[in-house]
């Protein structure tokens, strides 16, 4: 479960080389190979009445991406790293999934979605779609955005939100595998607000104690793996409380387990991983359960 190879998906406007540089601390763990992916959306070069397929525009966009990637690749090659590149015309999510499969990547890094409100409503965001379809962990980076914090080393102090789902338990193992990069991990469990409406203060305290005990066990397993760990129990709305916990802990990243819910279910019921991936100011790492299909 080590991160040996990462796929860095960029349209350049939302994710630059600085973001990648901040992830190179993963070399302390196992990172040795970076694969750049730029997907030229089909509608930018599609057939137009009276114009046909815009081959010249495709060449221009390909070369612009190529020149940028060559510059980035030179930097990495000179550090002894392995570098690859995909510049393709197509739809973002299927192309990213395909590249991830071909490369057998351990992590996909992508910027926050730039779709508008209406596009979100009708088709969901690229990030949501990717989370739904990718088995490979996805890091949603928030670099070139007005609402993002600046982080030098995102993996230094992750906040791991635990809900005991298979994805969040897999995240525990994922973080252990990069222990040389992680300085300290904060574990948070957000208990349902309904727990506050228990019959007595004792019952509420009992809920908190049970969650803490379970978190304690995970903390001990982190400590045994050589990672300093602290547990926290918050009560309330998970979307808000996880963000608050990240601030309180001065976290550098939020890590969550994700599930392969159908898009329409997410649209109506909502999803904490998706909301945090889209709205949080922190880089967000989402880890699907082991058996999700790509």
């Amino acid at each position: 479960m080590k991160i040996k190879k990462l796929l860095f998906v960029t349209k350049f406007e939302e994710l630059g080389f600085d973001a990648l540089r901040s992830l190179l601390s993963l070399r302390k763990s196992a990172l040795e190979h970076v694969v750049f992916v730029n997907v030229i959306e089909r509608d930018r070069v599609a057939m137009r009445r009276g114009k046909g397929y815009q081959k010249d525009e495709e060449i221009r966009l390909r070369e612009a991406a190529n020149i940028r990637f060559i510059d980035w690749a030179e930097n990495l090659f000179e550090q002894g790293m392995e570098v690859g590149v995909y510049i393709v015309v197509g739809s973002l999510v299927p192309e990213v999934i395909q590249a991830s499969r071909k490369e057998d990547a351990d992590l996909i890094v992508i910027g926050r979605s730039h779709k508008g409100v209406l596009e979100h409503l009708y088709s969901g965001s690229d990030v949501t779609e990717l989370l739904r379809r990718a088995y490979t962990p996805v890091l949603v980076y928030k670099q070139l955005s007005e609402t993002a914090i600046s982080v030098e080393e995102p993996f230094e102090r992750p906040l791991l939100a635990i809900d005991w789902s298979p994805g969040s338990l897999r995240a525990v193992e994922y973080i252990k595998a990069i222990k040389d990069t992680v300085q300290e991990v904060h574990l948070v469990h957000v208990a349902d607000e309904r727990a506050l409406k228990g019959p007595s203060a004792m019952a509420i305290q009992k809920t908190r104690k049970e969650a803490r005990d379970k978190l304690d066990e995970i903390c001990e397993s982190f400590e045994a793996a050589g990672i300093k760990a602290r547990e926290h129990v918050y009560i309330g709305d998970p979307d808000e409380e996880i963000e608050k916990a990240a601030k309180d802990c001065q976290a550098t990243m939020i890590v969550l387990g994700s599930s392969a819910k159908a898009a329409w279910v997410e649209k109506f019921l909502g999803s904490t991983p998706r909301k945090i991936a889209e709205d949080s100011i922190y880089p967000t790492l989402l880890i699907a359960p082991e058996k999700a299909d790509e």
Partner: protein
Amino acid sequence: MSKKVLVVDDDADVRLFSVTVLEENGYTPLEAEDGESGLKMIKAEKPDLIILDVLMPRQSGVRLYRELKTAKALKDVKVIILSGIAKKTFLRSQKALTEFGGAQIPEPEIYLEKPVEPDELADVIKKVLG
């Protein structure tokens, strides 16, 4: 029998360009679109010369070149690097890999930075293959 030349490049246009130059000059061209499939083809076809790109999916030219030059059966295959990556970067990357515990390897026969003219490519192929 004409000499076999393998072109390893992920860019289909560059492969077409190189293959055309090779055919016009009487060589037998072979093609591979990344380092991994290139290595398989080298082992299967034993080409006389490889025209190798550097920045490619699955396995870069940096690693493929290193694999060739450290494999007893393949180290004498001649290589022309044809890439957008600068020669000094290629050499520094090889130096870095040597410092990380890899073997010392020789420089490629010829290093050409893209783009090249057809005549220039034809001339260096002739020069390398004698």
